[in-house]
């Protein structure tokens, strides 16, 4: 009886500790992009709806090897794509990778992109590769906003 009284608090403490550690590890683990979410984003791009969701494509935004700093520039980018009926035709998810030291080269092997990746991407940013009829696209995607991965950058199509 005495032993049970001592064990219970210990077990409870261990359980709390284990749950806390699990939660902490979840919070600190890099965010992984799922294929389904990425393809949902592609559908949104193809329908021209990206510009309608506040905060989905924040600044600074990487476009190929360029950096867009103004919200109005990013808004213009998506509005122009919509006006041009832009779409990723027959899009196929290829991969979603956590960023490495040389990931910036996928966008451009340049001073600007090296610094963009160092300063404006983090552990939750993934480099997502998509193949489409027009060529290969790269996206920098982060945690979701309104059910879609937040877009930090886009490059393509690369032939």
């Amino acid at each position, binding site marked *: 009886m005495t032993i049970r009284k001592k064990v219970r608090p210990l077990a409870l403490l261990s359980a709390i500790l284990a749950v806390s550690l699990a939660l902490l590890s979840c919070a600190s683990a890099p965010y992984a992009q799922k294929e389904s979410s990425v393809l949902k984003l592609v559908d949104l791009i193809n329908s021209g709806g990206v510009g309608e969701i506040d905060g989905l494509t924040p600044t*600074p935004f990487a*476009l190929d090897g360029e950096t867009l*700093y103004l*919200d109005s520039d990013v808004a213009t980018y*998506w509005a122009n794509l919509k006006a041009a009926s832009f779409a990723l035709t027959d899009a196929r998810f290829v991969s979603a990778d956590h960023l490495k030291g040389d990931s910036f080269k996928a966008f451009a092997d340049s*001073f600007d992109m*090296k610094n963009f990746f160092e*300063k404006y991407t983090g552990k939750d940013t993934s480099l997502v590769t998509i193949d489409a009829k027009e060529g290969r696209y790269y996206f920098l995607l982060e945690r979701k906003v309104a059910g879609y991965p937040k877009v930090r950058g886009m490059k393509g*199509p690369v032939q």
Partner: protein
Amino acid sequence: MKHSVKRIAAVAAFAAFACLYAAAQKANVTYVEGVANIKSSSGKLRVADFGSQVAFGESVITGKDGQAELKLENGSTIRVAQNSVFSYTNVGTGSDSRQVLATTAGKVAYKLNKATGKSPLIQSNSMVAGVRGTEFTVMAGRDGTTLLEVTGGIVDVESQGKQVTLVKDEGVEVTPGQAPGAKYTRPGKELDFSSWNKGKIDGFLADPVAGLAKIETQLAGYQKALDELKKPFEDTTAAWKKARDDYKPILESKDEAAIKKFQEETLFPAQDNRSAVILTIRYNALNYLSVRRFVMSNMYMELKSRYPTSRPAAVETFFKNYAAMLAKYETVAVPELDKNDY
């Protein structure tokens, strides 16, 4: 390469000095509406709020519904409109130091009181201007064109070695890489930035190759200045190194009078001369970066988004020329920049 490393080290050392100096040179944010951020000299973004301070090397970037007002130490006010970028820097050292107030994108209105020291230098991506206790507005179009209108006082606008003096109710437009246009009398109503800027973008879209060529001319001016500074940098560095070497035995002699004399007459002037050259190099390199970042990027975005997959011949030529200009940027400006400039 070795030369570049040394230059970067010198730039870093000078940046540290500049940071200390900048601590006393700040603009205070006195009003904010909507979204406005401050981009630090290390590239980090923080929200601009009432009481925030903007130091040399920092920029204020406003969102689509944002605006911010800043106050300088002498009571001068700077109003940054929506979708705009205002950059706060300086050029020169010691008593030659001068504030640089730059409208990099969008619209910024200035009401400047008479300065006790040197008056600030007003800048955009296509012109510089000197002011004397005055009130004016600068609009920086996304094609690199600047429009400056004066509502009080006198403004001297300079570009490509040509100068135009504006008085109350006069304005002038400056196309990148060209001398200031003819000055005009301001209409009673303030010009609408959005309409004016749309006209500039439409003009660029009508002939993107010509629009990019104007930017190339503007950048060639910065490149020329950087090339011309190579020799002064080498000379002042050699003089500073010699002074440093000559100083060692004097220092070891522990002759206080000789040490002080050498410091004042040789060592400190050599350091100051070199610092002034380094600051001027950085001033030109940062101007290059500003055009690349806020004008060229916008041109790229406009054409890339309008022609995402197939392009007419003129647009294809634009992208070919653009790539060549980016390669030049990497060799001309980047060696004079460090990652904190990005």
